[in-house]
C-alpha cells in the first residue's frame, strides 16, 4: 500500500522532505495552516500568535501533564495564499536551534491536494537527533494528548 505521508531523509544531509497526499481540496488544506483555531486542533497546541503574512511571526505553546509549558516559535518569511509558506521553526529551551521550512501546497485534482515540506537543519547531527526524538517522546506525547482530553471533560 502506498503511504500517504512519506519522509525522505538522505544519509549525511542536514535536510529532509516530508510529503503528504490529502483527500482535501487545496483551499481547505491551506486553511488548516492559515487559521489559528484550526492549527490548534490538529497540532494539539495553543496558538499564542500567528501572523500569516510576509515578515510575520508565530508562537505556539503546549502544556504537559505536570503543568510545564513548552514553547515553539518562528518567523514567517513568505506567505502566499494556497501556494506556499516559508518559515523558521524553533523549540524553545532545547539545544536543536532553528530550522528552516519550505511548505508547498499543490492542487492534484479538485478534491485532492499535496503538501511538500522541505526542512533544513543547522547540521546533520541535529537533523538525526530530531528524527530520533519521537522514540523518546512518544510516550510523553500520548500522555499529553490524554491530559488534554481529560481537561476538556472538566
Amino acid at each position: 500500500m502506498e503511504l500517504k505521508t512519506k519522509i525522505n531523509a538522505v544519509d549525511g544531509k542536514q535536510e529532509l522532505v516530508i510529503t503528504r497526499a490529502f483527500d482535501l481540496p487545496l483551499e481547505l488544506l491551506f486553511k488548516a495552516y492559515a487559521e489559528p483555531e484550526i492549527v490548534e486542533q490538529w497540532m494539539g497546541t495553543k496558538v499564542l500568535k500567528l501572523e500569516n503574512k510576509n515578515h510575520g511571526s508565530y508562537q505556539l505553546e503546549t502544556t504537559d501533564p505536570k503543568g510545564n509549558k513548552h514553547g515553539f516559535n518562528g518567523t514567517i518569511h513568505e506567505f502566499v495564499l494556497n501556494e506556499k509558506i516559508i518559515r523558521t521553526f524553533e523549540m524553545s529551551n532545547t539545544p536543536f536551534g532553528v530550522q528552516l521550512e519550505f511548505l508547498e501546497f499543490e492542487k492534484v485534482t479538485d478534491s485532492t491536494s499535496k503538501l511538500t515540506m522541505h526542512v533544513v537543519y543547522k547540521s546533520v547531527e541535529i537533523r538525526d537527533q530530531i528524527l530520533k526524538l519521537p522514540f523518546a517522546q512518544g510516550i510523553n506525547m500520548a500522555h499529553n494528548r490524554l491530559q488534554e482530553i481529560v481537561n476538556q471533560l472538566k
Partner: protein
Amino acid sequence: MNLRRDVFQAIADPTRRAILMLVTTQSMTAGTIASNFDTARPTVSKHLQILTECELLTAEQSGREIYYHLNAKKMKEIADFIEPFRKMWDDRFNKLEDIMKNYKPKE
C-alpha cells in the same frame, strides 16, 4: 574494552558507507575491501572494526580468511528509525484531514 558504538555515528562516515555498499552483493575479505580504497590498509581495518562492533558487518572465518558480510537485520533497524517520526507526522496530518473534511465555513 571498546565502548559500544552508535550505529548512526558509524554510518555518518563516507568510507564506512562505501564499505557497506561494497559488501551488499557479496562477502569480502579485509584485503579485497581495502583494495577498493586508496586509504591505508590499517585505516580500512579500523573502519571494519567499527562496523563489526556495531553489528552492521558480521565477520566469518572461512579457512584462513575472514569474510565480512552485511548484517541485513541491523541495516533494517536503521531504515526503521525514521518510522516513529513519520508516524508522528502521519497522525497529525490524518487529524488535519479529518478536521477539514468536517469543516463548515463561518457565515
